């Protein structure tokens, strides 16, 4: 069995599972945020009208909440949503609530790994599609909707169709200026935005083995854009050290796939041949080397989101921006308060500010076109985020080019899409 199959066989108390099987799986951890949380509460309210009463949650200690999409409150509705969610969480005994303006808070997927909330071998579901991110820890991590999350909160389990696993092996020498974002954009370009529909995407090979954890999260985060049920990487020493640095010295259950595991497809990539890339509007599969569109003028550079504002992302962007001035408005939003703090201590924030960029608080706002940096009519943005659908970051005529933090930083300096090697 592959790692995904093994986790799902354990979690469903089966000796073995086969792709296509429908199982009821126990869940270890569950997350919701200020969009999915009120949606979940609404599900319970609708059920109440039909006579169903939610007396208690299955296990409030396995649940956490991140406020991230509409914080700082964009208007009265979003403020009321947070109040409602807070009261509900208190009523049902949820203690892990990462509240905006109260110490550690940030984008839910970043919090989930930054706080070491998910461990290898666990089944983790969240009320957001990029929950796949935490699969880089070696967990089965998948995004679900409000009803499914509500069901998990009540029963501690949920149904899954066991996915086939696609293996992506990345080998060769990783060139300078190539980041995980370039690797995953090239993969999505090849398989398409539904290339992994109903399937698991597993990553391996010497390049992936050599990536630090934060870069690995970029790979698994973006599996959502290929339609994958989950993204996953087998845990190794890098995983263990990452978790130990956050949780102290504990023993982890380092579950791995069987040596003879069957993958539905195996893809081999030579990293040496990859170039800094962008996904052109309006699809994450619309990928070309930056040099093919070099010179395309932009109105904004955005370094933020769960896939593009981790500490390693900020370091990479700062390396490019150091001592330079930006030519277009540039917004940097660290993905979590803890990362923001580290960026201050390392001097990255000074580099960003001296370059002329704005530093904002962690929020998903601009990435989903909600607030804190929405694009206007016909505006063009180079962005470290994960989606460039029509209207994703604002007006439906605006355009987003997805790229690595290095490409976005280089483009900020020139005001045009730019390969960082050409600076």
């Amino acid at each position, binding site marked *: 069995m592959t790692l995904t199959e093994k986790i799902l066989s354990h979690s469903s108390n089966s000796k073995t599972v086969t792709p296509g099987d*429908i199982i009821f799986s126990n869940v270890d951890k569950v997350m919701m945020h200020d969009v999915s949380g009120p949606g979940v509460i609404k599900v319970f309210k609708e059920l109440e009208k039909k006579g169903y009463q939610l007396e208690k949650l299955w296990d409030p200690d396995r649940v956490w909440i991140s406020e991230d999409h509409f914080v700082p409150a964009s208007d009265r*509705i979003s403020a009321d949503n947070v109040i409602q969610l807070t009261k509900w969480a208190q009523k049902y005994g949820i203690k892990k609530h990462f509240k905006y303006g109260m110490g550690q808070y940030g984008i839910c997927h970043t919090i989930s790994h930054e706080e070491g909330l998910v461990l290898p071998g666990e089944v983790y579901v969240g009320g957001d599609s990029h929950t796949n991110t935490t699969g880089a820890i070696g967990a089965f991590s998948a*995004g*679900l909707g409000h009803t499914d999350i509500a*069901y998990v909160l009540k029963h501690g389990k949920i149904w899954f169709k066991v996915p086939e696993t696609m293996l992506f092996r990345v080998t060769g020498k990783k060139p300078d200026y190539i980041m995980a974002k370039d690797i995953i954009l090239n993969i999505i370009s090849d398989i398409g935005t539904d290339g992994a529909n109903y399937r698991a995407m597993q990553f391996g090979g010497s390049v992936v083995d050599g990536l630090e954890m934060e870069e690995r999260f970029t790979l698994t985060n973006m599996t959502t854009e290929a339609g994958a*049920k989950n993204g996953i990487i087998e845990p190794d020493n890098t995983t263990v050290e990452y978790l130990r640095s956050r949780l102290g010295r504990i023993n982890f259950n380092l579950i791995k796939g069987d040596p003879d595991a069957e993958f539905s497809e195996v893809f081999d990539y030579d990293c040496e041949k990859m170039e800094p890339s962008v996904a052109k509007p309006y699809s994450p599969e619309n990928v070309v080397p930056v040099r093919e569109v070099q010179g395309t003028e932009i109105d904004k550079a955005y370094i933020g989101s769960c896939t593009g504002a981790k500490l390693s992302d900020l370091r990479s962007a700062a390396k490019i921006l150091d001592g330079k001035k930006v030519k277009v408005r540039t917004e940097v939003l660290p993905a979590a308060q803890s990362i923001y703090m580290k960026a201050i201590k390392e001097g990255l924030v000074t580099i960003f500010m001296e370059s002329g960029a704005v530093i904002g608080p962690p929020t998903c706002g601009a990435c*989903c076109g909600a607030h804190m940096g929405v694009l206007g009519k016909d505006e063009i943005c180079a962005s470290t985020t994960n989606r460039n659908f029509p209207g994703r970051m604002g007006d439906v005529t605006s355009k987003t080019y997805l790229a690595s933090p290095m490409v976005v930083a280089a483009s900020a300096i020139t005001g045009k899409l730019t390969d960082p090697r050409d600076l």
Partner: protein
Amino acid sequence: MVLKGTVHKYNRPNIDTDVIIPGPYLKIHDHDELAKHAMEGLDPDFTTKVSKGDFLLVGHNFGCGSSREHAPIALSKTGIKAILSPSFARIFYRNSIDGGYLLPIEIEENILEKIDDKDEIEINLDKNSILNVTKKESYPIKPFSKIISDIIEAGGLFNYKIS
């Protein structure tokens, strides 16, 4: 179960959740209010065209993108009862079923060309077939798997558990 209604055809692949219900509306949890913005990113007049019990006919990978349950909620509240597509994005598909909002029905790719906008059709879920009343043709549909049809019959995942 037989459903009868008018088809609204948007023959393009990868219609994503940002198009079905754009990000700024995600803070809204009033279902009727959400419905006013359904498909706003694709067709601003969508809600004026749709009547209760109608169907959507769309290209493959419908509902890709976000896990927002607002998407099937908004569509179902406009009156849409079922969506016909060669394939659906995973989370959209299960949200539609588990929330009991609407039926995501898989068809073969070539059927997309055989049904036109505004055709009247009948979907027969017992026979897994579509009758095109306007064109007097019939086509097969891919049957739902056992758990999906059980959840549909129960009226959503919570009822399925209770039963």
